[in-house]
Structures are given as C-alpha cells and as structure tokens.
C-alpha cells in the first residue's frame, strides 16, 4: 500500500480520536439543570471504531506494523501512556484478521454487537488502568449502547470515504 494511503487512513483515525475528545468536552450539565449531579456516563470510541473499520475493510493491507505505528502516534497525541493504543490496535487487528471471512457472513446486527463490545472492552481497560476511581458499570453499559449505535454510521460513512479516496 502507498504511503499516501496510510496517511489518509491515519488522518481519519486521528479525526475520530479528536472527535471523541470534542464530544467528551461537551458538558451536558451546563445545559440541563436536572443533570447537574449525575456522574459522567458516556464515552465514545469513534477513533477506535474507525481503526477497526479499516482493518475489517482492508485486512490484507493493514498488518501488525501499521497497527503498532498508528497506535504509537495516537498514544503520543491523545494517550495517557505510550503502549496502550499500540496494544489494543495490534490485538484487535489480530482478532479481525483471523475472523475476517467469518465477519463477512455476519449480519449488521452481529457486527454491531461485536464492535460495540470491542469498543467497551477497550474503554473498560482504559478506565481500569488509568482512571480506576471513575470506573463504573453504568458507564460501560451506556457507552456500549452509544458505540454500538455509532458502528453503522461509521461503517457506511467510511465505506463511501474509502471508495472515493482509496480506489
């Protein structure tokens, strides 16, 4: 694969992580008085899901080295520790690689469940490692619903992007 293609793919992943940051900074408590005392319950994983999409769509072109380098740059720009995104990118990349043909015969619903669960597992590990005091099952449940709902728009959006820019 050309370097420019890697660059385009990385830009989309970076934009996803940036969007996650942007969404997290939106403080709903400022707008809804009743929400003043509720804890923080939702975290999106758009960047992680975009990475999953690229491996799912182009498994023969994205291998461990690409996952490692993308993860390293994301760790340096967004992560709390170097190695975290590297580890998760490599792991999910490996899982998608070995089951990619099985995923092809999955329904959209099954894909939603799988990628939603993967995103929540990533979030759970992130909270357990870096922010154990803020870890909660409610957060995981709500985040699962949000990330699962985000998978289809990401899937179709990135597919049309890929067909336009990465022919």
């Amino acid at each position, binding site marked *: 694969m050309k370097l420019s293609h890697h660059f385009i793919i990385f830009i989309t992943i970076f934009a996803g992580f940036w969007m996650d940051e942007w969404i997290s900074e939106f403080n709903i408590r400022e707008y809804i008085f009743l929400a003043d005392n509720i804890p923080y319950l939702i975290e999106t994983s758009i960047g992680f899901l975009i990475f999953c999409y690229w491996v799912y769509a182009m498994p023969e072109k994205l291998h461990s080295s690409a996952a490692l380098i993308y993860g390293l740059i994301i760790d340096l720009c967004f992560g709390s*520790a170097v190695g975290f995104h590297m580890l998760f990118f490599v792991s999910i990349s490996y899982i998608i690689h070995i089951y990619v043909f099985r995923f092809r015969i999955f329904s959209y619903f099954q894909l939603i469940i799988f990628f939603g669960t993967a995103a929540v597992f990533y979030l759970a590990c992130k909270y357990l490692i870096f922010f154990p005091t803020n870890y909660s099952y409610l957060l995981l449940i709500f985040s699962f619903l949000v990330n699962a709902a985000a998978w289809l728009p990401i899937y179709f959006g990135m597919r049309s992007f890929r067909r336009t820019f990465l022919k």
Partner: protein
Amino acid sequence: MARTTPTFTPVGKYALAILVSLSLLISDINYQTFSSIRGFVQAAGIYSELLIDSFTTKITKFNSIYEDKKELIKVNKDLQNALLKLQNKIFLEKTSQVLANDLINLYDGVQALSQDQEAFIFEIASFGLKNYLCCSSHSLYLKNPQKLKVSANLPVANSNSFIGQTSSLDINLIKVILFSDTEHILPVKINNFFCNAKGAGKPLLITCTVIKGPELLKIRNNDPVFTSGIGGVFPRNVSIGRVININNSTLNESKIIIALDANPLESNHFGVLINL
C-alpha cells in the same frame, strides 16, 4: 468451509508487536519513561492550537474593524482580564505576606528568602476538560511568554484561592496539576485536625481518608478547610474549601469529603508564587 484468514496472518509478528507494546506500556505506567516525550508532543499540540487561534482571531479582528460592537466587546474582555489579574495579584500578595510573617517569626535571617518569592500572573493555554469532566487526571497548561524557569511544586492560584501546583515545564508551557487530580495530595487542616487530602478525581472535590477517633467527631459539615503548610508547598492557613460530607467508608475509617472554593474553570489567568 470458509477459510478463517484471508491471507497469511503472521502470528509471530503480532506476538512480537504485543510484547513490545506491553513492555512500553508497563515501563511508562511504572516509571514514566515517556512522560517528557508525551509532554513535548502535547505542548506542541497546544502551541499549534494557539497559533490557529491567534490566526483566526486576527482574521476576525480584521473583519470587525468597522464594527463598533465588537470593539466594545474587546474592551470589555480586556477590562475583565485586567480585573481578574488584579484580584489574583491581591490574593497572592496577601498569602505571600502571611508566609513572610511566618518566616519572620521563626528566623529573622530568612526574611530575605520570603522577599524573593514573587507572584507572577500567567494566562491559560489549555485546559484538559475531557479528563476534568470524566476522569481522575486533572491538569492545565499555562502560557509562559517571559520564558521563566518555573520549577515543579510551586503553588498556583486564581482570584479566590489556590487551585493546584506546578508539575513540569514542557516547551515553556507550565503544566499545573489540580487539587482534584487523584495523584495530588494536599496536607490540610480542619479545625485542629490534620490530614492528607487526596484528589477525588471529580471536579472541585478532594477527600481525606482517616481513622475514626474522637477528633473526627468534632468535624461538622460546612467546617472551613485550610492549608496546613506541612507539605512545604503551600503557605499555611489559606482557606481552600469546606467539608460537605463525612462518609463512614469502613469500620475503622471515615472519608471526609471537601468541596474546593476555587473553580479553575472560572479563570483565564492564574498566579504562581515563584522563588527567584
């Protein structure tokens, strides 16, 4: 039966990649191996954001040359900033004076040392709002146009009270760790009771976990909380918050929950006491 892999998936390479990332992660979490590199990248990101901001501000200014209202807003904003700076300076001078008096009482000779402590006002460069709202890591970056050599562990305040302490200097941006960060520990005094208050990982909250005893029974909700000065970073007897709850977490321990007075989100300028 369908093949499970589209192409050859080299397990060895994946295993190696996982090992490399795991070792990097463990070394960074345990020994902060890459904290300086990460700080550098984050500071570079903040600088680029500031550059884009200043660029867009200049374009906006150019457009609003003929718009009187925008000019008035700018004057208003400048006046607000000046007022905040003034409030901040007054607070810091007051606390500097308290510190100086303490030192005079102890040693005559160290008066000169207290005079060396000066309050500098810095404008905020970036606030880690995402982590502040959701997670336990609470920090902000301050601009340092004068390129002062600001060391770690210096008190930082806004116009109300102290909000945290300096943590590091990344490409001339001053990193400040807030009281509510779970990594931060602040020795405090409630009435005559001393304890180490740890950040709760939630905005404006710190907690003291203490062993139950007769002194604890004297503490009531809304009791004022002061810095004890024991840590050597903050001057003593500066009001930083009040007790809002006392939870009996276990049989032997209680958790005193303290709400902080100074909200870092309300200020654009912060003062740092620097030993010159």
